[in-house]
């Protein structure tokens, strides 16, 4: 049912960092954790739309560069006490390549 699209080799995303993927549906931030997991979120903070791709990544979290909300990479939920959610996309790594499902 879902369509996986190849994004880039895993190496192209810095560890504890991200890349922005520009799509017809807007920018998607693809993150790589310290243990090489990948996550994808709409590149918009639930607070005021800040680009989450530009934040500092730790654990499975990213801190938004604009006002410091922290967002959970695996759910898109803001970490309490902040409250809000950004859209999450599915992402996976296969043989060193990152895939994204945006359907």
């Amino acid at each position, binding site marked *: 049912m879902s369509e996986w699209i190849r994004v880039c080799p895993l190496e192209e995303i810095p560890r504890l960092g991200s890349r*922005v993927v520009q799509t*017809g549906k807007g920018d998607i931030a693809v993150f790589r954790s310290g243990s090489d997991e990948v996550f994808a979120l709409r590149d918009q903070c639930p607070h005021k739309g800040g680009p989450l791709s*530009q934040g500092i990544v*730790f654990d499975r979290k990213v801190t938004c*560069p604009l006002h410091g909300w922290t967002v959970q990479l695996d759910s898109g939920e803001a970490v309490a006490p902040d409250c809000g959610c950004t859209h999450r996309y599915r992402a996976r790594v296969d043989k060193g390549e990152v895939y994204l499902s945006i359907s």
Partner: protein
Amino acid sequence: MDTKKTKLVVIGNGMAGIRTLEELLKLAPDMYDITVFGAEPHGNYNRILLSPVLAGEMTIKDIMLNDVDWYTQNGITLHLNKTVTRIDRARRKVVAADGAEADYDRLLLATGSNPFMLPVPGKDLPGVIAYRDIKDTDEMIEAASRYRHAVVIGGGLLGLEAANGLKLRGMDVTVVHLMPWLMERQLDRAAADLLQKSLEAKGLKFLLEKQTEQIIGASVLPPHRTHPHPSLPPEGEGTITPPLSRGRLGGGWVDSLPPEREGARSRRVTSIRFKDGTEIPADLVVMAVGIRPNTGLAEAAGLHCNRGVVVNDTMQTYDPRIYAVGECVSHRGIAYGLVAPLFEQARVCANHLAQLGISRYTGSFTSTKLKVTGIDLFSAGNFIGGEGTEEIVLSDPSGGVYKKLVVKDDKIIGSVLYGDTADGSWYFQLLRDGQNIRELRGRLLSGQSHLGNSGHQGQNNAASMPDEMEVCGCNGVCKGTIVKAIKEKGLFTLNDVRKHTKASSSCGSCTGLVEQILASTIGGAYLPADDTRKPLCGCTDYTHEEIRKAIIERKLKSIPEAMGFFEWRNVNGCASCRPALNYYLLCAWPHDYRDDPQSRFINERAHANIQKDGTYSVVPRIYGGVTTPAQLKRIAEVAEKYAVPTVKITGGQRVDLLGVKKEDLPKVWADLDMPSGFAYGKSIRTVKTCVGSEWCRFGVQDSTSLGIALEKALDRMWAPHKVKLAVSGCPRNCAEATIKDVGIVGVDSGWEIYVAGNGGIKAEVSLFLVKVKSAEEVMEYSCAFIQLYREEARYLDRTVHWVQRVGMDYVKKRIVADAAGREALHERLKDALRNEKDPWQERVRGVAAREFAPIRFQS
């Protein structure tokens, strides 16, 4: 339940015990199988807020900290309404009054304290109570709805809060106090007199220097509502209350009761008599004369007690399996009666229960606030003074303001503030840090918050602000919202308030106000964060200083190494510690350390300032604000070529191109071909200059050339925070040098150097460091000062924060008095900068290219 887990039993379901569990669950959620015994029938509630409950400002529901569900969710077995009566240390189990038992591997005693009851005849009469728990509070509320005369014995914190609450509930309240003035353990006479006056204006009555001899009771009618509540008619002192006219006791009014009521008699307090023979009516007597650590259980179990269960710095009793925290404890001979120190104990105790073993409790300084709405009072330390002390006093009795600082050897050792407590936490900080205040003397009493804070309408005094007034101008948070959150969510620290309300979490200029609101809402429970022992962040308990020291001594050369060495709690750290560690490593190992872009805030990673719409700004360096037509043309061409929406002259004497797309940044830099202005970094920003002696008719020194030379010398320098300099060519100071991190003012005979100023959130006028003759000397002193700041300040300290902590004396000692040290600092700075490359030039050549390149695909 997993039977193999270590068993932890907690006796006492109060504030200290449960806070220890909260801390423990954060550190080691699965380590223990936990059982809690509580003598009260309630979950864990915020005892200090019993005062607002009594005053009718809150309900019991509002003050619950952890309801019963919390225990269930955390797998804790909770025995409510069960008093532990025996600890069997040999069999390692505890036994409750109803026979319930629990085995332990570790035991935590948190039994709090017992109110002290004056041993006078009549103390056991119905209607004579203490003020300690929900039951007492309920009884007082109940009494207020039925009776008239309340007498509170004890004019300390607790007594006054009780009296205030009972008064608000419509009772006629007299406070009886043994000493000549109120709160003698927290206030001197002058402040206490002002306090008494304000409380009298609220309708409270006082009998000072009165010693209670006897509490008298008689058979009276069962309670029934005698007055419409709470709007009772005002009444003069000593009036005898209708409807039962009670003459002197022993008199016959009871006997003259109408016979139909005879059967309903019960004994209850009716009056109170003093040593001097006088007597006043009392339907309720509240004893608030002190507390005694509740050590009965521990003593019976053979644990060493001496006015408290004796513990060491790890909160362990003489039995290593048994820990103790809270008011029941005696630590280094002190039993604390305020929440803040107990919470510190809780944190240390949890650390040891979690077997981390890295933290110690070394005692606390405490400060006092009275939680009576509209009364502003603060006291800390030794406020009476003594041998070798001096006092700095401001007394304005008709304005209702009194401030006293007790100073010894240039250090604050105590303070009392009444009416204007805006600076209480500042004084407290100075006191606790033992900071030398010689330099501050002149402006100590006018206060820290009166100088140049922006963003909240110049308000300094939270007490006088109405609820709907905005406190935090960045996040639009009003006073009422903060008060509500503190009460309802049970917040105790500035950080809690920041997290829950956002107030003070952005620029921080309203921090002082938020601290005041916190202090007046939770009273002495508020302890400003201990600045001298500030952990780097939540990932570690180690301080900035300890970490910086170990980085050098242990030759730690990467973030993972540093985190590993200090056993960081979170593998990747967090957004607070990574940038700090990155800077500390960079500063320690300027040539060996490989900068970690992922640990940099985006501005420093992209070498441009992110804007609210995700675009960036570009600020090329224009040394000293001096440019050329060719440079300006180039900037103009770039702005046109990339359709830059806004071109702005900045406050730092250069040009800002705002609204550039991230992917265009490398091209923009390539075309500009100018050095990076570092407008985005914790780094050297600008050196502002004025025209100076080259053109200006007043100029006595060439400020422009010196400014440019300084900016070139400091080019590409990273620092704990941004660093701004300015050079003025004469004392007219057109470059605003006296609000800069380093400011130079030319005078006829040379240059004056000022340091540790800034504009910004809280304007700080810089302090005079030294006067020198030549531009070379300016260079050496300025660079040495900046290097010292780079090496010793905490990440995100601006120069002023650091200098306020270490003191100007120290700075002068290192920079002015020690010539060899100064030279060495200057050399180290030069060495650190010798290899720094211009980030834009590197990126134009393709360094870090993927940072700027999005991945595109259509769908």
